[in-house]
């Protein structure tokens, strides 16, 4: 198949690399999340009150349960504890999952630069810049 822009040759390399990053990023995130969840359940917390599931259901919003992390520093502190805080582990997995597409764009940028594809290196850089700006400015980029 010798179709310009098809999934072979230089363009195929970008697709393979980004595909691999997305796949392994997803797998790694799930593994961390699952480990945290298993530890959480093994501690008998599933039927406990640590995460106050009832506050999130029946359309109720009674304030965020204290155990739900909202900063990277809290997550790091939770991971530094021994035994490791299972909720921190679950949160780490979710954050890793959330960061995976941005890492994919970064991979595309690096690959386009390596291939000398200036147009798409610039486009990937613009997308990455907008992502970072969106992260700091607003949650409405979805």
């Amino acid at each position, binding site marked *: 198949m010798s179709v310009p822009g*098809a999934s072979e040759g230089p363009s195929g390399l970008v697709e*393979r690399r980004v*595909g691999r990053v997305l796949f392994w990023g997803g797998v790694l995130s799930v593994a961390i999340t699952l480990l945290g969840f298993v530890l959480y359940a093994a501690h008998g917390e*599933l039927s406990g009150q640590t*995460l106050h599931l009832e506050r999130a259901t029946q359309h109720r919003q009674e304030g965020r349960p204290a155990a739900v992390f909202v900063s990277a520093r809290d997550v790091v502190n939770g991971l530094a504890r021994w035994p490791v805080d299972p909720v921190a582990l679950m949160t780490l997995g979710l954050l890793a999952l*959330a960061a*995976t597409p941005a890492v994919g764009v970064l991979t595309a940028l690096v690959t386009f630069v390596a291939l000398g594809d200036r147009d798409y290196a610039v486009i990937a850089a*613009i997308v990455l810049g907008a992502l970072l700006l969106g992260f700091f400015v607003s949650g409405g980029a979805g």
Partner: protein
Amino acid sequence: MSDPSQSAMPPAVFVAAIFLTSVGAGVVGAILGLGGGILIVPLLTTFYGVHMHYAMGASIISVIATSSGAAAAYLETGLSNIRVGLFLVMATTSGALCGAALVGVVPVRGLELILGLALSYSAFATFRQLAIEVPGDVPVDPLAYRFRLQGAYEDIRLRRVVVYRATRVKAGFSAMFGAGVLSGLLGIGSGAFKVLAMDTLMRLPMKVSTATSNFMIGITASASAGVYFTRGDIHPLIAVPVALGVLIGASLGTALMTRMRNRTVRMLFLPVIAYLALTMILRGLGIELR
């Protein structure tokens, strides 16, 4: 349970139930190129009584999970076009930033009405194209040529290699920017608009449109996820089963979609746009469905 505030379902059953629901949402999301927010939010709020904030937090995670689960497979098969995706993501992300800056400045209801009407037209256009399996010769667009917005994929169902090239790039790019502005303003996902702009305006094959949309939605959702996290809207006991379920579902969905006809994908997509259009028009007129 003696505590009346307790969810009616025991936590373990609740977690298992939303996991299974998410598997289904992942299958549909991967096939249609939608984030899953459109599916996950109503399912969690209506059937499981999850508060809207936590449903939206789980939804943003489901969008990224769908994207990661599906994009890898689609990129490998050539269905997802990374150049088209990155080119158009430029428009949606910059549009979303403008939209976010305009919150409180422009009347949202009027915009919802316009959006609803635009979606109704798109539903009509999609219906008209129902019989078209693969776009034929499309007018040559210098921008598509300049930015190599083209590709080929092996269609298992049609048993041939489908070669395609985008057209009306300016119109597609503008539609993407508009969709980005609206998603920034209204806080909605824009998977449906991405698919429509690629399928209807740029005349890309439907399967390429949904697969490329899958790649794009993950990128835009990634930018929003941090805000949901710092607001405390990502509740692990809701987001974790949703993420796991959607990832598994999305992997199943990709395997299914490669074997489907473009026409079938479009037929599945049509009621979703019709529903979205109706919801938007009603909201624009000040009528809430729920």
